[in-house]
């Protein structure tokens, strides 16, 4: 029972009437492919509610026509009718659960895939701006709260609403006067329910907040346990935690108090209404205004009426929460990608040079990161980009692979502006290997396969062999099928780097943009990585962001990037002879080495 845990929605997330209407309309438009299933589910719900409601009516029939008129046949008919209705309810509510859940889950499946595809289609600029946590939350906690509604509350919400509405209709139809009498406690119930819904929402929000804080204090106490013990501060931390813990308890007790006040009101209203129906209804029976059977039916209906009201007041929070989640998801789906493929985009030619002309770029549109960059790299040429941190080397690499578009100027491959190329052909020609080997959950083979969709195992193994690391991974207990675990934690940093290089080998691009790793590796792996890189660079156009002196030395040309522009270009020897920035950089590098040795 999800609602027992207390769903809640914060004030800023609450939807206005207009927004709510919009969200509902949009949700229904997503359900259009399942139109008939929606109709079917609703019909079944209507049917099962009607079946439940016909019970007391049959009791009335039994009493008025059977007992009062001394007709055994009428009693038998009523009982058989009741049995039929009960079986009907059994079948229908079974179908109802299955139909509604199937519909809801299909909706969620579509939504998940759409949101995920949409996120993936966004440009890098979008990912720079949005926090990872927030994006993940859209796909997890927001969709999960919808899932919770579908799994736990949706059927109840709809059937309870139907039950209340239909009960009122039936009661009025049976006896308007008694029905009116039932309404005497209604104002109190409505006021109490609305107030409960509001204050419990507030209280649950506070509880959720507090739980979050307690858990983060706990998490901190665990990750920082070594520091805490090193400084002998266990008791202080414990006191701090106890305070958080107590604050959580206080918040929980406030929520408990609110519900402990609400439930008696509903219970009293239920008994009071029954008392009123029996007391005043009895007078009406004496005046022959209503039958005994009707009175009995009313008593039975009332037993069923207050429970749904009580549940609805709690389910309402869950529904509101789901509405807010849905609104956020639709908001995300409405954000457009800034890097779409142009209409009529062409495939890039198989070979060619890469050329940047007058390229300028800024992440935020204000501070320029690159300006006036001109650079041509011939097919098969190996160029090293060097320069201080923040000079714009990595940005240049990102522009070359069109993770961003330049703000000014253009980048072309074989004479085709990258913006006019199909994204697929672009990714095949130009591949970036980032600094850190980033791995996904799955096996080593799976991870290499990221390089080219649909590659066979043999092709993947060929890629590993090509860069000379097949044996290294085969030596693992589970070989190439080794699960790398979260973020590849099963492998060392160097091994992750090797997998990442194998990926590039599998992709087999014309142009390779390598961001050399800065982190340190153990000497053995270092040699493997070096060998893999050399094998990979063979016969390709290579741009490498060099962090190692040796890499720059070996390049055909060195490009010194400084303060957002190209400061110097030339071979290693030429630049040394020029005694400019490169020479200075080289001196400080080799100086560091000299000091150590």
């Amino acid at each position: 029972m999800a609602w027992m845990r207390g769903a809640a929605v914060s004030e800023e997330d609450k939807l206005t009437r207009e927004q709510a209407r919009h969200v509902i309309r949009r949700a229904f438009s997503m359900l259009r492919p399942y139109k008939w299933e929606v109709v079917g589910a609703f019909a079944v719900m209507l049917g099962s509610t009607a079946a439940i409601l016909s019970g007391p009516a049959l009791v009335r029939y039994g009493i008025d026509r059977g007992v009062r008129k001394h007709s055994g046949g009428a009693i038998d008919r009523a009982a058989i009718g009741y049995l039929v209705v009960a079986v009907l309810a059994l079948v229908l509510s079974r179908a109802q659960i299955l139909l509604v859940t199937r519909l809801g889950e299909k909706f969620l499946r579509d939504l998940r895939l759409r949101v995920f595809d949409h996120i993936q289609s966004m440009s890098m600029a979008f990912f720079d701006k949005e926090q990872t946590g927030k994006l993940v939350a859209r796909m997890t906690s927001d969709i999960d709260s919808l899932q919770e509604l579908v799994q736990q509350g949706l059927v109840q919400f709809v059937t309870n609403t139907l039950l209340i509405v239909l009960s009122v209709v039936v009661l009025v139809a049976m006896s308007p006067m008694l029905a009116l009498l039932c309404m005497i406690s209604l104002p109190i119930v409505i006021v109490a329910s609305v107030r409960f819904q509001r204050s419990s929402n507030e209280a649950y929000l506070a509880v959720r907040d507090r739980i979050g804080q307690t858990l983060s204090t706990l998490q901190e106490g665990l990750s920082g346990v070594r520091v805490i013990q090193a400084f002998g501060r266990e008791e202080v931390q414990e006191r701090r935690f106890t305070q958080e813990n107590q604050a959580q308890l206080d918040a929980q007790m406030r929520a408990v108090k609110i519900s402990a006040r609400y439930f008696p009101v509903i219970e009293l209203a239920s008994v009071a209404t029954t008392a009123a129906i029996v007391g005043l209804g009895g007078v009406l029976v004496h005046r022959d205004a209503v039958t005994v059977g009707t009175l009995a039916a009313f008593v039975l209906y009332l037993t069923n009426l207050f429970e749904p009201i009580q549940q609805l007041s709690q389910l309402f929070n869950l529904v509101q929460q789901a509405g807010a989640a849905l609104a956020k998801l639709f908001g995300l789906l409405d954000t457009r990608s800034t890097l779409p493929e142009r209409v009529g985009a062409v495939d890039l030619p198989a070979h060619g040079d890469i050329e940047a002309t007058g390229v300028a770029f800024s992440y935020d549109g204000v501070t320029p990161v690159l300006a006036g960059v001109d650079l041509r790299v011939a097919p098969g040429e190996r160029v090293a980009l060097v320069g201080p941190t923040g000079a714009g080397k990595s940005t240049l690499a990102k522009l070359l692979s069109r993770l961003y578009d330049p703000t000014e100027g253009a980048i072309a491959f074989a004479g085709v502006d990258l913006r006019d190329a199909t994204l697929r052909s672009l990714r095949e020609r130009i591949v970036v290997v980032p600094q850190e080997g980033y791995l996904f959950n799955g096996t080593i083979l799976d991870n290499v396969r990221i390089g080219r969709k649909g590659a066979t195992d043999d092709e993947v193994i060929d890629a590993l062999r090509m860069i000379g690391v097949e044996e290294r991974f085969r030596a693992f207990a589970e070989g190439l099928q080794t699960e790398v675990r979260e973020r590849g934690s099963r492998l060392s940093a160097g091994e992750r780097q090797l997998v990442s290089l194998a990926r590039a080998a599998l992709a087999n691009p014309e142009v390779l943009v390598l961001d050399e790793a800065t982190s340190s590796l153990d000497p053995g792996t270092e040699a493997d990585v070096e060998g893999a890189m050399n094998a990979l660079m063979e016969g390709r156009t290579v741009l490498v962001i060099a962090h190692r002196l040796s890499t720059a030395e070996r390049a055909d040309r060195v490009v010194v990037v400084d303060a957002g522009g190209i400061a110097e270009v030339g071979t290693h020897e030429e630049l040394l002879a020029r005694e400019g920035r490169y020479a200075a950089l080289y001196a400080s590098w080799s100086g560091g080495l000299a000091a150590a040795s």
Partner: protein
Amino acid sequence: MTTARSPRRAGWRLLGATIRPQRTGIIIGVVAGLVWTAAKVTIPTLTRLAIDRGVIADEPGALARWSVAMLAVGLVSAACTGTRRYLAFGIAHRAETELRRRLFAHLQRLHFAFHDRAQTGQLMSRAATDLQQIQGFVVLIPITVSNAMTVLAVAVILTLTNPGLALLALGALPLVNVAAKRFSSRIHPVSLELQQELAGVSTVVEETVTGIRVVKGFGAEPIQAARMGERTVRVYERAMRAARIRAGFMPVLDFLPALGLVAVLWYGGHQVLDGRLTIGELVAFNTYVLMLIWPLRMTGMLIAQAQRAVAAAQRVNEILSTEPEIVDRPDARPLPAGGGEVRFEGVRFGYVAGAARPVLDNLDLVIKPGEAVALVGPTGCGKTTVARLIPRFYDVDDGQVLLDGVDVRHLKLQELRHAVGIVFEDTFLFGDSVRANIAFADPEASQARVESAARLAGGHEFIERLPKGYNTLLGERGFSLSGGQRQRIALARAILADPRVLILDDATSSVDPTKEHEIRGAMAEVMAGRTTIVIAHRPATIALADRVILLDEGRIIAEGTHDQLLAENERYRQVLAQAAEQDAA
């Protein structure tokens, strides 16, 4: 069998011990529940009296009398339902809170080796999910007692009224209990699986978003989309499996009482015709049957919940019954005055008991009071281990570590830890202000002391430039600092503690070499007259030490000044050159 049963019994014991302090609340809660039950079961009887005497027989004043009586009883039951609810949740939340406090306090005291093995995520789930399971069980105790009484009372009343009808009406109801229990225990594993599949979805999302550069760089969006597709299908399947279980049970839970109602209507109706039952009794029978549905369902759930709670309590108990290994001995001594002499005598140590090769093997080392020593060596040589044995984060396997002449195992732990300050390689800062982080060892420290510690650590300038200076909040929800800045705050934290022995474990590795130069002067001041152990690989940092010790494979292979070793030792040059190549990157 005993091995399987005794942890289970320990789980129950823990549950018992947790709720025992609250017995007054439980008793009042149970009493309120019983009064509520009494009131509840009276109402249909009053309805019957009102119908039979007031409506059918029309005795004068009967209608008014019984209606008012119903209202009065309604007041009592309402008051009791509120009280019972308040107490039940109160007890459960308090029990949960107390267990969480104990868990935290205990975890804080468990030794390093425990935390090396334990996964934070696992421990977190003990404190979150498992405690919630326990709470969910405790909350049901008072209502279960009144539910049981309701069932009993109704059974008695109905049997006294009309035994035959009672049997027909209630006959199918025990099945509700059975079905509810079976439902609860069948749905639980499936919903756990569903939770796991949902976690799987979030893994794919998370790694795609964090690894988006790789995904985009290779145009691997379709691959990730396919993985997502697989995941969503699995979620869909699990969700539908849960739905099928629900669809199988929930309607049955409604159907069984309906059978009772059919029996009441049919058999009861005929009994009324025969004059053996009144109409009021017929209506009352109906209401009574409806009244039993929830108690029976809940009892079934309680049984399943109790099983989960005991399993959870077992896991919590496993942690609580782990004894902290590094504690004060009964005869622990205070730390004598001294200059901070550190002595390793024949120390053997390994993280894994019985490992083929210990990390430290028969290590002898003396560091004189006030001396500054640099430990140098390749990765895995044992230098960090040396640092961690001095404040007794681990106990040695053989030999002893002495501080000012006393084996650290004989010292009062608090005093030892205050006397030895350590700056770890991976900096941990708390989600608190910069000030609070620096003043961690002494929250009462004056601003002047905090600032002077920050100055010595080379942090004052950048801290002043932070948005709120020393009051800037750090951590997840606060400001994020660079690695070098974090290290400088950690350094200031150790300086403020003013320890007798200061250990810097690669503590300035992330500080930009150009900035480290700024710290160096101040560091000399910190180290003056204080025993200092520096683990470092930058020549400039090593130069701060009076003496350099070269460690390899858990042994000392050379010692001397930096210049001496540089001139004479090939291995020393190798180690430094390797570090420098990495550092230049």
